[in-house]
């Protein structure tokens, strides 16, 4: 039986060792992230069937739970770490060829540390440990957005850094308030004691937590950094930021709301916030000419949809939200990876510069089209069962409030269809400017693109492959008492 702490320690140790390797063998740095993430993926997949029944609690240092930090490797944690490892592995294979300039070994070190931080956030069971790993995730992403060193990158990184740091300070104030009230930092311990506290004294810590974590999760008024940061970063980093970083932020918000605070009163407010985020994201994406900014605003919209689904609060709703999260990660990563080489060929990020690209890079543009169809929610791809599950969950609550909001979700989907089809029209149906020479993206980019397409189609046709895991994950979020019992005994 493998200890889940290795999921965090092996990538961390290898990341510390990259500068040592680079002293002896110059080109070694770019092969270490795929190796570490491959290890993570294998360990997550081995652990997954075991944790569906009973979560594995690892206490670090050998002390008993409220007096130590513990990791909770339950269905949610191992599902997320499997997604992180899979997407990270495929994007690191893409980056073998895509990242050629600048200090390459620093890129790979920061990349591996970003994914280590993300894995740490989803596995931990202690709020201050959550803060520390969350900071690892955020600071690596600040440094990676600025990696190319161009004007837009540095400006976006500065604005992201300032907003992210203010958010982290709010999170720390919230942690201080919770510690002062309950005297412990363990998530299960706080969850147990929270029932004896008055709701007024819990209101301010909850707001501080949602604000602090919401900056990274890109919830409506706090997402001003996202379009700049995701469009100025190198495309492999945009894929990781849109596909993993904001989802992990949303996981942290969900963990705090469901497990620590157990709040059911705030859920309708979060549902409204989710719909606002969705509409703002989709409407702004519609008016963009820059393809990466369009994809970044589309990420904001999708996060709004996932937040709405999670705020429905029933087990269908939470499972639907997690399914939408999975399909958004796969589709958005595929879209950014394909767009990376399309931008490289076209020489600019404007959509109008990509006329006729469908004939010059057929496989890449086909992959982009598949990603777009999946994000919108068309049938044989993975976006369809996830959106269907969300709609069904909202209608099953039988409340007029949710039915009205589902109408707005469908409106958002219509806007999505409009702007994605505009891009596809430019790719395939606009005229060619010159003799089209077919030159595909290099093989190191086509392998991950092919795997993403295969995963999207497989999960879309057989959603039963993942629904078991998603249902267990949903019940872990919703059953606080089981969580408390499995940690504290």
């Amino acid at each position: 039986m493998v200890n889940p702490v290795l999921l965090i320690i092996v990538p961390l140790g290898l990341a510390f060792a990259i500068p040592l390797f680079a002293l002896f063998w110059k080109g070694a740095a770019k092969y270490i992230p795929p190796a570490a993430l491959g290890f993570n993926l294998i360990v997550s997949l081995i652990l997954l069937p075991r944790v569906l029944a009973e979560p594995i609690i690892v206490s670090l240092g050998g002390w008993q739970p409220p007096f130590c930090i513990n990791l909770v490797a339950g269905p949610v944690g191992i599902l997320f770490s499997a997604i992180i490892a899979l997407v990270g592995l495929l994007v690191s294979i893409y980056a073998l060829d895509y990242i050629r300039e600048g200090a390459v070994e620093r890129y790979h070190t920061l990349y591996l540390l970003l994914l280590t931080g993300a894995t740490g956030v989803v596995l931990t069971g202690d709020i201050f440990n959550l803060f520390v790993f969350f900071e690892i995730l955020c600071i690596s992403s600040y440094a990676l957005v600025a990696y190319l060193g161009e004007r837009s990158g540095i400006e976006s990184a500065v604005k992201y850094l300032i907003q992210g740091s203010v958010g982290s300070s709010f999170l720390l104030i919230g942690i201080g308030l919770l510690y002062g009230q309950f005297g412990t930092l363990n998530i299960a311990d706080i969850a147990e004691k929270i029932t004896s506290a008055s709701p007024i004294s819990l209101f301010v810590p909850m707001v501080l937590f949602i604000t602090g974590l919401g900056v990274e999760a890109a919830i409506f008024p706090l997402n001003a950094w996202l379009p700049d940061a995701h469009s100025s970063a190198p495309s492999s980093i945009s894929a990781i930021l849109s596909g993993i970083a904001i989802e992990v932020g949303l996981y942290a918000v969900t963990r705090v709301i469901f497990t620590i605070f157990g709040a059911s009163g705030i859920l309708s407010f979060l549902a409204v916030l989710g719909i606002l985020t969705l509409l703002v994201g989709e409407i702004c994406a519609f008016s963009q000419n820059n393809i990466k900014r369009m994809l970044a605003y589309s990420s904001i919209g999708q996060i709004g949809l996932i937040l709405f689904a999670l705020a429905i609060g029933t087990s269908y709703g939470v499972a639907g939200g997690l399914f939408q999260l999975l399909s958004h990660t796969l589709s958005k990563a595929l879209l950014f990876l394909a767009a990376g080489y399309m931008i490289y060929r076209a020489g600019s990020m404007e959509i109008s510069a990509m006329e006729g690209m469908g004939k010059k890079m057929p496989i890449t543009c086909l992959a982009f089209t598949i990603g777009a169809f999946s994000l919108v929610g068309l049938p044989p791809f993975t976006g369809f069962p996830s959106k269907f599950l969300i709609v069904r969950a909202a209608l099953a609550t039988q409340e007029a409030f949710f039915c009205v909001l589902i109408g707005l979700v469908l409106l958002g989907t219509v806007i999505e269809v409009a702007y994605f089809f505009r891009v596809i029209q430019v790719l395939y149906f606009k005229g060619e400017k010159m003799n089209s020479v077919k030159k595909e993206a290099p093989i190191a980019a086509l392998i991950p693109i092919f795997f993403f397409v295969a995963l999207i189609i497989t999960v879309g046709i057989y959603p039963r492959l993942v629904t078991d895991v998603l249902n267990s994950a949903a019940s872990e979020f919703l059953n606080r008492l089981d969580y408390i019992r499995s940690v504290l005994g």
Partner: protein
Amino acid sequence: MRRTVAILLLIIAGLGISLSLTSIPFGVPKTKVGRHYINEGVKETGATNIVTSVVVNYRGFDTLGEVTVLFIAAIGLGAVLTASGKEKERKIEPASLILGTGCRFLFPLILVFGTYVFIHGHLTPGGGFQGGAIIASGFLLIYLGCRERRISRVASNLAESLGGLTFVVIGLLGLVFGGHFLSNFLPRGTANALFSAGIIPIIYIAVGFKVGSELAGIIDNLIEES
């Protein structure tokens, strides 16, 4: 306009927070976790400085994360600043005689003091981070006083990586010998002796070297840039 909106928001925030402060009385013991650490700390970990035993042993995973954050900042700073790649010829004015002599005299004393602070981290106030910061301030003094000297980048990168790897390897050895990651598998010794408290002094020495070389590397990058 922006000022008034900001002040309004801050007044609302201040009122909200002061409402919640009434539930945290000042100066009253609140926690059972803290009591447990004070009562059992010396027996269970062997360190007489309870803050050190909390930082390195009970919550050692947080310290590993913190070491990683500093590592990321040093690497990110290096990646951002050296991307410009131009080698400028700068005229370096030598410092005055008093400054140069004073710095050369103080530098070994500061290094010794910093090393003392992190080696005795489990007995007296102090520890790896504090000692590392003192060592880095010694290096800053050299940059200000003897301006033509530079740290060797290879040595500083090596110290950083080896410090981090030592921490991770000790944790893994704790997993192998003690069954849990970061468990204290070396003998605890007698309290108040220098060689006591199991793995705590070793981790703090590794952290001290790492933090010292990292902060000195950050200072080196920033000075070279300006």
